């Protein structure tokens, strides 16, 4: 038997090591915590609005500001009892979904055409489409307003949805063409050799390969249309008003601003947006850069 003895000096060394590990682990925790603090700081203004949605009007306007209070659903229930609120919610969802699905559908066709065939002026069309999105809304709204009034399209669902379709097309085409260019034409050729028709090739063979692009186009156009307020305010009217427009017009009342209402409406408006970027975070980068940068963050 060999006697087993512990080397006391080694034990000390390992203890020192453990302490160092522990210390560095604490340092890591502190770093993690400070990163979280930064994230929460950016969320703070929204948090303040969210908190206000659960306050009484007196608590919202309280001086000094109240961070801790007994939450009330008074604001939200009062808002839910109003018919107008449900109109805004319905309009926001209905207009967003319809416009984006139509836009992404026809943009997929066009992007496929532009990616697979050479059109005279195809590049120029891509350039103009991009430019459209870079022009300030208030510069392009004037003639649209005159056109809509002349044709009687103002304050109609068809009018506003058609506008939002055009509003979504540039981004959808740019992102989908980027993805389509990345799919080799050999897939098209092989499918045709196998006797697939043009349409079947497009929908059965190519479409499944660019699903991430479709998701990004749908999600981000939804965010853009959900947020669109200038055109809805000018070309629309009471019937087709969406939540952001209602928010803005809530600021321009003569009888003093009803902050409880604004905060409650903001809460309802912001939650779907935050849920979207939580669940679709990997598309955020491609969505915010017009499809030019892909990858996760």
């Amino acid at each position: 038997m060999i006697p087993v003895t512990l080397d006391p000096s080694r034990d000390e060394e390992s203890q020192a090591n453990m302490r160092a590990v522990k210390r560095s682990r604490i340092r890591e925790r502190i770093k993690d915590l400070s990163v979280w603090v930064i994230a929460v700081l950016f969320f703070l203004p929204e948090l303040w609005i969210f908190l206000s949605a659960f306050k009484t009007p007196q608590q919202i306007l309280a001086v000094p500001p109240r961070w801790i209070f007994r939450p009330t659903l008074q604001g939200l229930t009062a808002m839910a009892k109003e018919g107008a609120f449900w109109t805004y919610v319905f309009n926001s969802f209905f207009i967003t979904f319809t416009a984006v699905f139509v836009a992404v559908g026809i943009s997929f066709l066009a992007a496929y055409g532009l990616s697979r065939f050479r059109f005279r002026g195809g590049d120029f069309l891509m350039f103009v489409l991009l430019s459209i999105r870079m022009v300030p809304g208030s510069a392009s709204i004037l003639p649209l307003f005159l056109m809509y009034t002349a044709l009687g399209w103002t304050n109609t669902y068809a009018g506003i949805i058609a506008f939002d379709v055009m509003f979504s097309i540039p981004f959808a085409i740019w992102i989908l063409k980027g993805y389509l260019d990345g799919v080799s034409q050999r897939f098209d050729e092989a499918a045709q050799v196998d006797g697939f028709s043009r349409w079947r090739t497009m929908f059965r063979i190519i479409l499944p390969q660019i699903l991430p692009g479709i998701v990004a186009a749908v999600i981000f156009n939804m965010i853009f249309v959900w947020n669109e307020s200038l055109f809805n305010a000018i070309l629309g009217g009471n019937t087709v008003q969406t939540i952001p427009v209602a928010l803005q017009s809530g600021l321009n009342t003569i009888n003093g601003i009803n902050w409880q209402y604004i905060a409650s409406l903001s809460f309802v408006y912001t939650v779907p947006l935050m849920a979207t970027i939580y669940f679709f975070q990997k598309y955020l980068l491609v969505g915010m850069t017009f499809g030019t940068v892909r990858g996760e963050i």
Partner: protein
Amino acid sequence: MNNDGGQRLRFMRQGLSLKAFAWILIIPVLAFFTIWNVVPFLWLLGLSFYRYYPTFGQPPKFLGLGNYISLMNDPNVWERIGTTFIFMVSAVGIETGLGLVLGFVFWSRRALWGRRLALTLLFSPMVLAPVAAGTFFRLIYDPLYGVVPYYIHAFFGVPKPNLLGNSHTAMLAVLATDVWMWTPFMTMMTIAALGAVPKAVLEAASVDRLKFWQRVRYVMWPYGKFILLLGVILRTIDAFKTYGLIAAMTAGGPGNATDVLSITLYREGFVSFDMGKGSALALFTLFIAVAFTSVYLYFLKNREREAIS
């Protein structure tokens, strides 16, 4: 492209020529594009040569280049352009600087606990409608009940400032809101730019014990510059067309302290109803936007050429 003989034959057999098929694909988009962009654009171009106030009930009067000349001679217009550029340059500058710092911080903590939620909170401002963000800050900056004036009063002992109502602070208050909204975007672009640096190269740099600045200059910059500059360009274009944020917060006031071009345009068209002058100014703005787009595309093309060579 695809129009080799064999394929064309197959399509003729299917009864649809390749050309017809290609056109069917893009016609829906072309139709939308024509009705909602080409027609309004021509309308805008035409209007810019007329004097036209729809509210007065008088027929439009042809002015030729009159609207353009009066725009060129209008000192107010040049002042608005100045305001727009001041806003644009300061916003993009601050956001890029802050975004770089935060980008490095977030990039270095990739194993952060609850990273997805943290990033959701950080990125939440940039998906808000500018109008909504402006609305939030109307409450936060409110001179009587707002949080920010209260804490300024509490910490600095000055009377509660009316941030949006004072022509000296309005621009700063609007800028601060824009920085809050868009710094996350530059943070995201920095994280993405750093993510574009190959891991092996980074490890080699740390084995070589390069200093931080050397690492940034020789290791990260060559790989990350494209995404970062792209972010700056996109942000510049977006800052140039800022409308909703300012419309909700100050509507260009007080006086004309925050009167950027997009706000002026809106006022010419829908407050003064001066359609002719409004159109001329809109075309001018359009021209600047197209110039920005060209820069953006030129940058992308260059990148492609670089990648090929």
